[in-house]
Each structure stands twice: as C-alpha cells, then as structure tokens.
C-alpha cells in the first residue's frame, strides 16, 4: 500500500478548562495524498480549526499524531504554511515586505538576493498583486490582503498549504474571484491543500475530497465525499450540472439533517431571554403598527 503524504491517525485533543479537560477531537483519522485538495466542513465549534492547527503544529494532539512524509509533526514550520482567516499580515510592512520576511527566513543561504527578489515578485504575480507591491495592508482591500496572505504562504514552498477559512471574511463577489485564483494556482503548482470552510459551494467547487465533521465535543470525521468533477471547473457551467448538485445536496444533508446543530438548553434559554427583551423594546412600535 502506498504511504500517504499526510496522515492523521487516532488524534484526540483535550483542552484544560476550570471544569476539567474538554475533549474537542476524538479519534480523527485522515490520509491525504500529494497534490490533493481537501476541504474540512462542519458546524462552528466542531473542531475544524483544531485539526488544522494540529497539522500546522500550533497545537499538540493529546493522543495520536500527524505524519508528514513519514515524519511526525511536533512544531510549526514553513513546510506547512498557513493562510489565516484574517490575513495576519504585518501592518507595518508592504505587500512585498510581508512576503520578503517569509522568503528571507525560508530560503536563507539557499537563494541569492536577486533570486529572492524574483521569487517574491513571482509569487505576488501568481495572486495578481503585481500592481500593489509596495502598498501597506491598510491601503488595500480585504480581498487583496488575503491574496498577499496566500502569496506569503505559497512563497514558503510548503509541502502542505493550510487554509483556515481563507475567504470567510470576504464578500461573495470577491470570494468568487479568489476561489478562481486559487483553482488556477492549484492547477499550476499542484499543491497539497487543506482548507477549512463553512461554504458548501466553495467546498464542492474547489475540493477533490470533502471531509465532513460531526458536532463537538469529541468531534470526529463523519463522512468523506469524493468530488469527481473534471478540472478545470467552471462555476457557471457547474451550477446546472446534475453531479455537482448531487454533491452539494450530499453535503447539505450531512450538515442540516444528520448533524443538525442542536443548541444546548443553557444557550437556548439565553437566546429566549434576549429575544424577549428585544420584543419588549419593540412592543410599542408593534402596537402603533397594529393600531
């Protein structure tokens, strides 16, 4: 049997809390091949980010572990570059300098100055940011910031690219643009990607496999869906595609039928009481409207 590029086996993680340990993940098993695009989807609080952080090395599994090319992951490193949800660019550096910081660190002694410069510009070119090399993060839009974040991660030449809801904070149009860019880059570089998302369309459009996670606590992998759609994928053509819609339906049914998020009693009560307060406030307005 072929060895997986990246393998999570029997991963448990517990976080200490004042009320005793909280088990966020239980027995998570996942194998990912070189060049595969895998999405993690699930309700919020189901531990998607925790899985990603374990692969990144930012969290340590309590039991089990993560192997990358047969080596255990024990700490963060540039071979597992992360694209963070809120871009995490250094606000005092320009787009170019943000990427430069990563490139200088990763390719110290391996690339000459001129090679580094070319490599930085190449990666910003990949994400279509050549026109704003020397702009600071506060001078560019949210979508552009995320593009620079992706360029920074790509510039580390990672074995696995980890993306934590990379487009979650963007508007729908910008998100679509960036998804297309990401597909284009993925087709060119054949990166291994793990992406967390809330967005069913995004998951089906981009992924080779969609890993659906059960609700926490003690969340684990519920189902894995193979998305067998030919690439390059076109979002407009796919909108009418029967296969695409079946995949979508499968994910939706997992999220909203099988793993329907049930709020616990306490949360429910809190919500009711705030709703009651709101309706009291709006009561006079309602009376006027009815009268």
């Amino acid at each position, binding site marked *: 049997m072929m060895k997986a590029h990246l393998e999570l086996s029997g991963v448990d993680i517990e976080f200490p809390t004042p009320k005793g340990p909280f088990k966020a993940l239980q027995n998570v098993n996942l194998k990912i091949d070189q060049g595969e695009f895998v999405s993690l989807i699930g309700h919020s609080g189901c531990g998607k980010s925790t899985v990603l952080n374990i692969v990144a090395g*930012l969290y340590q599994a309590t039991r089990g572990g993560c192997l990358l090319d047969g080596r255990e992951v024990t*700490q*963060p490193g540039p071979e597992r570059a992360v694209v*963070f949800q809120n871009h995490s660019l250094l606000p*005092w550096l320009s787009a170019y300098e943000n990427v430069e910081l990563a490139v200088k*660190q*990763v390719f110290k002694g391996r690339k000459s100055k001129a090679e580094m410069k070319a490599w930085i510009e190449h990666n910003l070119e990949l994400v279509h940011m050549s026109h704003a090399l020397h702009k600071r993060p506060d001078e560019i839009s949210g979508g552009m910031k995320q593009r620079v974040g992706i360029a920074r991660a790509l510039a*580390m030449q990672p074995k696995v690219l980890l993306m934590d809801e990379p487009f979650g904070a963007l508007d729908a149009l910008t998100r679509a643009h960036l998804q297309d860019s990401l597909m284009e880059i993925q087709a060119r570089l054949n990166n291994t990607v793990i992406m967390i998302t809330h967005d069913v369309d995004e998951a089906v459009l981009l992924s080779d496999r969609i890993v659906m996670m059960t609700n926490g606590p003690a969340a684990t992998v519920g189902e894995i869906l193979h998305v067998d759609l030919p690439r390059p994928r076109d979002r407009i053509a796919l909108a009418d595609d029967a296969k695409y819609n079946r995949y979508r339906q499968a994910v939706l049914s997992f999220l909203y039928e099988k793993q329907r998020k049930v709020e616990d009693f306490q949360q429910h009560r809190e919500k009711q009481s705030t709703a009651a307060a709101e309706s009291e406030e709006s009561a006079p307005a309602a009376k006027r409207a009815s009268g």
Partner: protein
Amino acid sequence: MNAIRAKLTLYWPESPLQALQQGLKRALLPLIGLLMFLFVWHVGAQNINTSLGQFPGPVQVVEQARNLIAEHQRERTKEVAFYERQEKRNANKLAADPHAEVKIRPYTGKPTFFDQIGTSLVTVLAGFVMASLIAIPLGILVGLNGDLYAAANPLIQLFKPVSPLAWLPLVTMLVSALYVSDDPLFAKSFITSLVTVSLCCLWPTLINTAVGVSGISKDLQNVSQVLRLPWLTHVVKIVLPASVPMVFTGLRLSLGIAWMVLIAAEMLAQNPGLGKFVWDEFQNGSSNSLGRIMVAVLVIGLIGFLLDRIMLLLQRTLSWDKSATLR
C-alpha cells in the same frame, strides 16, 4: 472612524466665504479663551495683596519678562568683555615674553534665566533618555515573559506612585557616596537631578511597552511560529514594530512627568535650572519676585507643551500606525 471622516467631508465648506468663516472661527475661539483668561487674571491680581506686594497681573509679567531678557543681554555683554580683557592681557604678556604661560579663565557670572532654561532642558532630556534606555528593553522583556511580568509587577506598582521629593534625599546621598572622581565629567547636582528624573519617569514607558508587547495579536505570533523566526528576529521584526504605538504613548507620558519632576527636584535640591530660579526668586522676596516667578511658570508650561509636540512629531514620523489618535 471612516464614517466620521465621511460626515466631515460632507459638511466641508464649498465656497471660499464659508472657508474663511470656518478659518476665522477656528482662530477666534482660542483667542477669545486667551483674552478672557487675561481679563480675569488682570482683575483678580489687582485685588490680591501679598506680603511681597500686589499679585502680578499680565502687565507686570510682561515687564518682568523684558527685564529678564535685558538682564540676560547685559550678562552676555559682560561675558564678552571679560574674555576680551583676558585675551588682551594674554596678548600683552606674549608680546613681552613669547614663552609666557597664558590661561583663559572661564566666566563665573550669575546664570541668567535663559541659562537656567538651557540647564533644565539638558537635564530633562538626559534623564528622559536614560529612563527610556532602561524602560524600553525592560518593558519588552517583561511583556514577552508572563512569569517575569508577574515577578516585576508588584515592584512596578510599588515604585510608580513615589514622588520625586521622596527619592531626592536618597539619590543625593547615593550620588555623593558613589560618584567620586577627582575630575568629574558632570556636576554632582546634574547627576542627582538626572537620576531622580529617570526614577520617576521610567514607569509609564515601562508599563506601556510591557502592555504593548504582551498584547501582540495571536495571529502575528502564529505567523512568527510558522516561519520559525529566531528569538531576536521575532523581537526585532514582529514585537518591536507591533508595540511602537504603545511605546510612544508611554514615552510621551514619561517626558511630561520628567519635566514636572525636574522642576520640583531642582527646587528642592538647589540644582541649577528653572526650579532653582523659582526658589531663588521666592527667597529673594523683592517686589518683582512674584512677577518673575510668573514668567517662569508660563515658560515652564510653554516648554512642556513644546516637548510634547516634539514627541508627537517624532511619533508621526516613526510610527507606522498613522491612524492612532495623535493629540
């Protein structure tokens, strides 16, 4: 923030007439405030009689300011004349005997008001620089390490509220005991003032730096971890720039405190400077004294204000965070 700016531009004057009105209003209101203050001062001063005569009003203060300037100029002329006389004497000596030893003695006249301002400024800046050199690195260390912070915090809280007047006797004795040299580079009084100022003004910078450093967002720390930045690079490339806005907030507070502390220290310790000037005038007790002290008060305020503006200017040029409220 942007919404406010948008609103401002919405109401921005379009016509030159409106622009003129706005400009007038902006210049007029502070002027009205100033005139009202002068009026109240003038009327109030006339009704207050002290043992040193009537409390000085604006007119007397302007008069005393003129006097102080005149005294300064007189002293300078005397000084120039003093050196000229020496040079002439030396030249005569050399003409009579080319191997004669000649000396230039320093002028030992009484320091004028403006000399005292200069001394105070040099002392406050030296004390402030020394405090910053201690407080910023210490703040970074304390901010980076939670254990160190826990250990240092009680000490910081304990020493922060101590008045300069309480430190002064201890510092004076310490300096006399430890700063022993046959050919001292600095006067003892200068060292005493400097140490007292530093002791009192390093806390805001220390605390603000520590808070700025410990408040660096988790995301930026994760970036640093993913890149495996070495400790020093992490500090220089991430920690320092991220905490620059907070460091400047601390520095501005510190400089303000340094200036206040210095005047008090000079007064009590009889160290040269503006504080000594005020104290000497008070002891002198002539009918002009109160007016001269009032001139000093205004000058102290003006210099404090200017120092703050200079720090603000520095912050504007050096800090990346242009959105920070700069007041």
